[in-house]
């Protein structure tokens, strides 16, 4: 039991100290890993804990990004205000989708289809919103890279790295306690068998809505980060199905429903993608699409040999629970 905390403390120290030892490129990769780890954790609340499969989480990233981005772009107000608007909008959207699905008994793959549909028609809608730049995109003023302007969330890459690290840590600790709370028990019961959960007095509608709302709120923060880190937003990019898939690969490969899965999966996938690129460059293979082939093969192997994800397997080797 204690051993987990020791590993965790070592990992935390390493992550905090990391920028002192690596260059700007590695730091950007690390930031990306944390971004996927955090967003994966957010998705995991809905799928891994409560068993509700969303394949349209790019919706919340996109709406969160555009909400905070637009407020900054048009009114010059920093993301600390925009964050709340982004969260409110995403929670509202999540509740609408949840209400439609859960009220009318849409579940499983049909629920997943509904989430895709919402992401898709939001993308189409945003293409026609001139106020947000339409298909031509919205561009935030590029940051001053040397000073930490925390109020407007503009600054050097280091600031983005640490803010993502903080978010990931908060999400991890939050989920740790959530899983051990009433909500965690109820969500897992619903995931395992909804009928039995209801017979034990759980208002399954209400608790599923709560999972969607929390997941949407957490994911909207990823969106705000995305807007201020990349500074440009295009509907066809941020709302795309690819983005939704990309977000869930981490927790799926790492281990759905586990606390470490999303973090571990994000690290493995991001490093793998980078590693393949570099290995191919070193070998001098320049065949179009070959990177995707290798990436796909590795995913295939993980799914075949470790169907519960990598993390449960690693946890067994390290002899720790979960």
């Amino acid at each position, binding site marked *: 039991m204690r051993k987990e905390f020791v590993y965790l403390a070592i990992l935390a120290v390493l992550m905090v100290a990391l920028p002192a030892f690596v260059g700007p490129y590695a730091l950007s990769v690390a930031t990306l890993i944390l971004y996927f780890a955090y967003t994966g954790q957010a998705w995991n609340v809905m799928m891994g804990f409560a068993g509700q499969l969303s394949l349209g989480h790019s919706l919340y990233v996109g709406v969160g990004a555009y909400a905070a981005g637009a407020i900054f772009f048009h009114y010059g107000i920093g993301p600390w205000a925009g964050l709340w608007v982004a969260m409110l909008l995403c929670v509202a959207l999540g509740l609408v989708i949840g209400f439609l699905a859960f009220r009318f008994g849409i579940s499983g793959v049909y629920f997943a289809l509904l989430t895709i549909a919402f992401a898709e028609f939001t993308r189409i809608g945003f293409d026609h919103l001139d106020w947000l730049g339409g298909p031509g995109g919205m561009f935030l003023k590029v940051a001053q890279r040397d000073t930490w302007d925390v109020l407007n969330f503009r600054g050097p890459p280091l600031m983005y790295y640490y803010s993502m690290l903080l978010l990931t840590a908060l999400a991890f600790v939050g989920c740790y306690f959530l899983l051990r709370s009433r909500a965690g028990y*109820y969500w897992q019961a619903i995931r395992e068998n909804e*009928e039995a*959960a209801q017979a034990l007095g759980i208002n399954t509608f209400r608790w599923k809505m709560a999972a969607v709302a929390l997941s949407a709120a957490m994911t909207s923060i990823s969106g705000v980060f995305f807007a201020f880190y990349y500074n440009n937003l295009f509907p066809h990019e941020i709302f795309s199905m690819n983005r939704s898939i990309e977000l869930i690969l981490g927790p799926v490969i790492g281990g759905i429903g586990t606390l470490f899965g999303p973090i571990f999966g994000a690290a493995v996938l991001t490093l793998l993608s980078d590693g393949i690129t570099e290995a191919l460059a070193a070998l001098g293979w320049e065949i179009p699409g070959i990177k995707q082939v290798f990436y796909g093969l590795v995913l295939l192997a993980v799914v075949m040999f470790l169907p519960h994800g990598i993390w449960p397997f690693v946890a067994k080797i390290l002899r720790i629970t979960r």
Partner: protein
Amino acid sequence: MSALQVKNISKSFRGLRAVSDASFEVPAGSINGLIGPNGAGKTTIFNMIAGVYAPDGGEIVFEGRRIDGLRPDQVCAAGIGRTFQLVKPFAGLTVLDNVIVGALQRERTVAGARGHAGSILRKLGLDAKAQLPASSLTLPDRKRLEVARALATRPRLLLLDEVMAGLRPTECDQMVEVFRDINRAEGLTILLIEHVMRAVMALAQHIGVLHHGEVIARGTPEQVVRDPAVLECYLGEETKV
């Protein structure tokens, strides 16, 4: 005083009348059996009490309050626990966590629920398996887990749906003992649906017999087995040669 009153309830599925005009009462603190051949409407009645379906007509009254048309979670909150004929464990959770989910219905904290769940597991002889995943249990243990989870919600009426089916006679007798103990110690009212006559005869003080969705006989086990209408539906009509 009756804990549960079922008054003239009916239910049809696509024109097929599963239950018609069925009425019976369950006295508080008693153990009651509902028997009948396959397709007699037992499980339908059971599901109407548990809130899975609303009856087409009639009333279900629990402790003086109408509960027909409530959702299953509201029926549970009202004080009725149920098991499923086809067991539905939370397979990925441990045995203890399964029971904690039920215990949270009345306990304010997870720690409190954990304590209550532990005492129930001891009562049902599952405490040695508390930390195993529910998916690893054998069928008799899964049936016990079903009962443990339902009991954890601190019901005043326990509905048991064929909880003995698939058990060996000795396991069946153990289960009978458990229910008798709980009934005696806590005054828990029990309504069981059973195929296994051995269990019903051993446990129930009152029995209702269902046939084609209608209650055709009510009484003590001795009265019911001698009732010609019951014999007819179980064994077929007597014919003189």
